[in-house]
């Protein structure tokens, strides 16, 4: 303990009243904020924004669909789906899911959705398309579905069964009128505005009922003659709902339709798929989940079908479903911890201190989350738990130390000051290293990771106040302890004695080291093989036999592909897609990708084109091909759009200007390996088939050994410098690489940047209009704007506004042109540049074509002709996520090790302590990785923070042991004695802290419904145990064998330890 610590502690305790008031006030403030904490989940927070695939995804997801998709399979239990009851349910599910809050209406797809159509040419040669089930059949199914609901409501409301169809129609009409009155009543409107969720929900339900009855009345009115109502079943003249002939021809139409068979209808005809894309912003997943499950229950009630549900929104829904369970488990953990501590200390101090610190820290932490506008999601709850565990750990140290000082000094206040001063340095160190270890997670470009890093670091730092400062204050006010002998079970004592003997014996220590070496080396080989990304179908967050995973397996076995890998085909100008050679290119690409046996099929605008072409030529299959001219292509596609009720029908396949198109390739699963193969195959094709007359790419691959290492450092280092790769096609068809000019000139920011708004990330025309209307019509104004005001605009929030401003700010800077190329031809000029706007910004490709404006290429490529941009769709997004995890994983581990090393070096000025500690950490980490391999846990976005945190959890143990060894050396013991004492005293504390923690979390494995929590509990337990063993056995063994400098004679300069006096040091 040094002067500074002592003076600070004294000062702090002397002014205790003020300090407690300050802390109290701060807690009250945080508490108030914490009450406004919001629990929600956001899809975009999971995406690594800087990854090239995500750049492509964000550029096109508004056009071609988000990856936040619910996939549902309706499986007929008896026979096939070509049964009107089953079709009714498919209709009902599709219709109802389309009405959910948060659904992207353009992305709902099933055999009953309007976008799925068959074309035919009538006698006059007009192209007509019909919904594949048939409009008449759909109307009947709709009528039946809503009739059932209306009848059920009526019966539930006490009405008698309806005698006839006419009675029912009358009742519907009456009810409609009734609802009109109720809903227009001003009282109802007031209720809705009152933000009372229940009242608002019931008004909402009435509105929905009114809308349903509108349609129902219409449909009932359209029913042909001869329909009767029996209970809730409508029956037509043939004795069925739908005329038999309509259902009879359905299988044919479905089997012939490439868009449907195998994808929306299973290959064995027993199941139908419904997919629904959801928006990516903040959604009420709980509500979505509940409503979808209500729907499922409704449809399954008569046992004719089973509904299977998977997809990201459902997964999030499950985590919310289990959120309460998670919280209970966490509280239980805390409770167990408290009980174990009580047993250890045998005094209520041991319970109150840690608990109070944990609770106050929790309040501060939650308040902070709320202030920052972050969300709390169920899956990140594990992080606070770990931090709380750390807090408890520190508390234990303090109470122990206090006991000793009290025993020695017999004055409570003095004891507090003294123990506080002694632990100020190591305690603060430990907290700072913890906080830093969490903070480094934030290097990832995944927004959720950044948020976890920031609030986690804050929460960890707050422990400095709550444990270090608050605990001390509390003790001053509490009565003095009388009995402070803590519990030391004899078994543990003997065990530690034996350990000490083994660790200090020259020979036995060497044997220990050899064993350790073997363990480490073998762990290395196991750790090497841990996979990034999921390694089995379904999700590792839930158990294998969970409903979600079972459903995933059913879907992947019945359909040849529910997971899509999307590749975007970009061209250089409007209507570029409509060129025959571009269409044929796409066709060739699809065919190549389909050769992979894991691919179930693919779909793109070319498939539509070919089908329409065939229909237009009398159904002759020979015309199922790409037409020969632009005009024919444009004409056919136009006819298709004009012939369907929704002219946006081709939007999922190409954009309005026909400049870019999407190719979707379907796979049976989205395991990490599958994604890698998909990407490799696509890249192989692109590599072997350069397209267009001029092809420009930014090549940023890091090759070679150095490249691999740099890649592993991930976000820690600036993005790789790109090379401008330009290829021009010669007359003979070969491609020649062109010389580019390496520049380096600085350019000023553009003066008029109004047009550049659209180049900002995640910008769309609608959002740009919002900005324009609000007066922000150029980039400079956005950069200068007030952040609060921007966040208030429609469609924006704090996070988006901040990102927007950041991007705008970049545009104000000068940029460097790193390389450029240009070419003059008859058609015009082509200019290309690599621009870089900051050290940590990625290189950007900008192209100016034939006198148009400079365009920033988000996909980092451009061709005069078609070019392929990877990758979008679910697999593209997951692939990016996996890449990011792979990069971040290493980066965060390296950063935490480096932090620990540097901090120790600075404070203890001992290289050997630093190295020894890092080595201990490293081997524990390796062992935990080996465990992950054997337990088949892979790295993903969720395991990343837990792992990073967990690595730092055990570092203290070795630190305290070594600290004690030095302390004892200074007191005059020789090395062997010092180590022995350290193991038996500090080691006892280490053993207990470690085992209480493990005890607190290990039971998660047995009772958690989330496999994720179970896996993490095991992982952390292994880490803790490994660190414990490392601290009490391996590190002492090293010390015995190698006798490092810090354990040398007393008087070594550089070590600031406690003074010579003092009793048991249980650190």
């Amino acid at each position, binding site marked *: 303990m040094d002067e500074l610590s002592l003076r600070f502690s004294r000062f702090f305790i002397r002014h205790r009243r003020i300090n407690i008031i300050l802390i109290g006030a701060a807690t009250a403030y945080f508490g108030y904020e914490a009450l406004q904490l919001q629990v929600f989940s956001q899809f975009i927070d999971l995406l690594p924004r800087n990854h090239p695939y995500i750049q492509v995804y964000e550029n096109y997801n508004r056009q071609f669909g988000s990856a936040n998709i619910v996939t549902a399979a309706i499986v007929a239990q008896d026979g096939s789906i070509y049964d009107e009851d089953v079709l009714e349910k498919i209709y009902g599910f599709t219709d109802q899911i389309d009405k959910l809050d948060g659904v992207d209406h353009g992305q709902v797809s099933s055999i009953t959705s309007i976008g799925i159509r068959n074309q035919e040419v009538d006698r006059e040669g007009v192209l007509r398309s019909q919904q594949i089930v048939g409009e008449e059949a759909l109307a009947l199914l709709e009528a039946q579905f809503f009739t059932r609901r209306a009848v059920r409501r009526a019966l539930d409301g006490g009405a008698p069964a309806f005698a006839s169809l006419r009675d029912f129609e009358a009742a519907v009409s009456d009810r409609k009128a009734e609802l009109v009155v109720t809903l227009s009543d001003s009282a109802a409107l007031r209720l809705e505005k009152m933000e009372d969720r229940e009242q608002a929900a019931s008004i909402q339900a009435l509105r929905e009922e009114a809308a349903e009855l509108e349609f129902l009345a219409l449909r009932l009115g359209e029913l042909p003659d001869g329909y009767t109502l029996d209970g809730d079943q409508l029956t037509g003249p043939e004795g069925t709902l739908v005329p038999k002939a309509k259902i009879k021809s359905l299988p044919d139409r479905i089997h012939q339709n490439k868009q449907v068979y195998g994808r929306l209808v299973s290959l064995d005809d027993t199941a139908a798929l419904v997919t629904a894309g959801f928006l990516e912003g903040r959604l009420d997943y709980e509500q979505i989940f509940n409503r979808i499950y209500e729907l499922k229950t409704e449809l399954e009630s008569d046992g004719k079908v089973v509904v299977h549900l998977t997809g990201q929104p459902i997964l999030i829904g499950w985590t919310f479903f289990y959120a309460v369970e998670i919280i209970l488990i966490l509280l239980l953990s805390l409770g167990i911890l408290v009980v174990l501590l009580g047993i250890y200390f045998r005094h209520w101090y041991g319970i109150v201190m840690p608990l109070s610190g944990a609770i106050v820290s929790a309040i501060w932490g939650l308040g902070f989350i709320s202030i920052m506008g972050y969300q709390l999601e169920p899956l990140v709850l594990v992080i606070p738990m770990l931090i709380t565990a750390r807090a408890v750990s520190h508390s234990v140290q303090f109470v122990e130390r206090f006991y000793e000082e009290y025993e020695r000094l017999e004055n409570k206040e003095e004891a507090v000051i003294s123990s506080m001063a002694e632990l100020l340095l190591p305690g603060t160190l430990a907290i700072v290293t913890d906080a830093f270890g969490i903070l480094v997670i934030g290097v990832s470009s995944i927004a959720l990771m950044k948020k976890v890093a920031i609030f986690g670091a804050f929460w960890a730092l707050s422990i400095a106040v709550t444990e270090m400062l608050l605990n001390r204050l509390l003790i001053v006010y509490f009565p003095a302890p009388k009995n402070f002998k803590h519990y030391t079970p004899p078994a543990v004592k003997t065990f530690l004695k034996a350990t000490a003997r083994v660790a200090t014996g020259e020979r036995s220590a060497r044997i220990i080291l050899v064993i350790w070496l073997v363990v480490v080396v073998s762990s290395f080989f196991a*750790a090497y093989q841990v996979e990034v990304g999921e390694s089995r179908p379904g999700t590792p967050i839930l158990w294998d036999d969970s409903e979600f995973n079972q459903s995933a397996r059913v879907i992947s076995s019945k359909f040849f592909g529910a997971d899509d890998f999307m590749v975007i085909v970009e061209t250089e100008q409007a209507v570029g897609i409509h060129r025959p050679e571009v269409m044929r290119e796409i066709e060739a690409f699809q*065919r190549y990708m389909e050769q992979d046996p894991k691919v179930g099929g693919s779909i793109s605008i070319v498939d539509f084109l070919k089908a329409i072409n065939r229909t237009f030529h009398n159904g002759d299959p020979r015309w199922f091909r790409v037409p020969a001219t632009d005009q024919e292509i444009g004409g056919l596609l136009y006819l298709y759009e004009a012939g369907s009720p929704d002219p946006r029908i081709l939007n999922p396949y190409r954009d309005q200007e026909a400049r870019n198109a999407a190719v979707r390739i379907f796979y049976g699963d989205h395991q990490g390996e599958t994604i890698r193969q998909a990407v490799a195959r696509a890249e192989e094709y692109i590599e072997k088939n350069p397209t267009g007359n001029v092809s420009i790419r930014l090549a940023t691959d890091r090759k070679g050994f150095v490249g691999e290492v740099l890649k592993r450092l991930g976000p820690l280092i600036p993005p790789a410098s790109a090379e401008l790769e330009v290829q021009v096609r010669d007359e*003979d068809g*070969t491609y020649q690489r062109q010389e580019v000019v390496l520049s380096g000139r600085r350019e000023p920011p553009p003066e008029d940047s109004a047009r550049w708004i659209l180049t900002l990330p995640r910008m769309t025309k609608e959002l740009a209009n919002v900005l324009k209307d609000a007066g922000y019509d150029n980039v400079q104004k956005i950069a200068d704007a007030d952040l609060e005001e921007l966040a208030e605009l429609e469609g924006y929030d704090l996070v988006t506004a901040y990102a927007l401003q950041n991007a705008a700010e970049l545009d104000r800077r000068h940029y460097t042109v790193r390389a450029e190329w240009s070419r003059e031809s008859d058609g015009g000029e082509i200019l290309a540049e690599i621009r870089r706007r900051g050290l940590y910004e990625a290189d950007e490709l900008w192209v100016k074509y034939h006198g148009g404006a400079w365009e920033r290429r988000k996909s980092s490529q451009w061709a005069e002709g078609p070019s392929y941009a990877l990758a979008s769709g679910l697999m593209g997004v997951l692939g990016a996520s996996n890449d990011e995890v792979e990069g971040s994983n*290493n980066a965060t581990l390296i950063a935490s090790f480096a932090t620990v090393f540097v901090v120790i070096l600075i404070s203890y000025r001992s290289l050997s302590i630093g*190295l020894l500690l890092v080595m201990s950490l490293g081997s524990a980490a390796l062992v935990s990785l080996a465990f992950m391999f054997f337990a088949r846990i892979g790295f993903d976005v969720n395991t990343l923070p837990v792992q990073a945190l967990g690595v730092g959890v055990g570092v203290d143990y070795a630190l305290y042991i070594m600290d004690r060894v030095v302390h004892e050396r200074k007191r005059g013991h020789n090395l062997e004695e010092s180590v022995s004492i350290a193991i038996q005293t500090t080691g006892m504390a280490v053993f207990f802290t470690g085992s209480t923690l493990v005890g607190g979390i290990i039971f998660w494995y047995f009772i958690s419904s989330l496999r994720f929590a179970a896996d993490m509990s095991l992982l952390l337990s292994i880490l803790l145990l490994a660190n414990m063993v490392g601290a009490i056995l391996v590190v002492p063994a090293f010390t015995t064998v190698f006798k490092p400098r810090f354990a040398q004679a007393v008087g070594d300069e550089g070590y600031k330890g406690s003074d010579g006096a003092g009793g048991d040091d249980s650190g």
Partner: protein
Amino acid sequence: MALARVRNVLRVWWLLPALGLALAAATTQGALEFEPADPAAWQLPRSDLYGVAAAGDLVLAVGYWGTVLRSVDGGQIWSHQPTPTDRTLYAVSLGDESRGWAVGAGGTLLQTTDGGVSWHKLEVELPATEFDDARPLDTPLFDVSAISPYEAWAVGDFGTILHTRDGSQWEVVVIPPEAFGDENIPDRILNAVHFRDRDHGWIVGEFGTTLRTSDGGATWTGERSFTGAVEDVYLMDLAAAGDQAVAGGTGGVVIETADGGLTWDSARLPTTAGLFGAAWQNGSVLLVGDRGVMFRSDDGGATWKTPKAPRLFNWFRAAAFGSDGQAYVVGQNGIILRSVDSGASWAQSAGGEPPPLDGVSSPGASSSPPAAEPEARPEH
């Protein structure tokens, strides 16, 4: 002093491997490089098949992406043959068991001289007109009919008719507009051609076109009248024996003639599916079409029955007879049906060998021939 420092540092040397370990721990994940799966495991998708021809036990089927499937045992085992094109092949015809031709999209014309094992491209030059310079033929060719190993006719879009006498030199044949026998444009889709010998041939196509020649193509007649079918029905294929012929078209239309094509009657078949392929041998007539429909007549077209066949939804595009009552039907998704009783009953043929490794027909796989230069890059 410095020496002491160095010695102190050396004391610590053993900790360097510790550091290295720590770094190794950090960098181990993901070190395993991805190896792409064994390319031999990749499968060609089952390409749609558009044409089939047989000579003895040799059977050839052609289709999408330049696919050629070959069987030497009467259609039981099939293997992929490389072809120098990616264009879709629409028809194939054999002069004998060694020589034949296949035609397809973009004016593709291939010849084989070894029974379909290897193929080489033939170029046809369109003569210069007052509007255009001479240029290679690039319009789709839809059918080819071999009269002998050296003589054949082919037809296609835009009224294209081609003829060869030596097997490798092909000429464009121009027919005077009045020969078509109607008021429609001469540049019409011609879907099928069938020659039973040097002199007698038929061509059918859109607008109800039925052209006949009995002098080896020197003159053609197109006059016809239909009973029970519209005059401009889109005709897909034709099969003939002597003066009798059967032609199938869209909407389930089937017309038959007994007088060499002057008058045609409509046969009422119970289908509205387009009939795409026809074949005739020894009184057995086959008609196959959309949605898996098949019809057979064993009395030269007087009566029709549905043969015993697996219930499939694929479209069938072509039918052909072999020897000894063998018959073949090919269609969507690579389906091949085989009969041994002249079409009375059918079974799905067994699959063939795994296709070539890189999945794309290797250019330059051709053996001898005139005018064959391997592509630097497969064309579309």
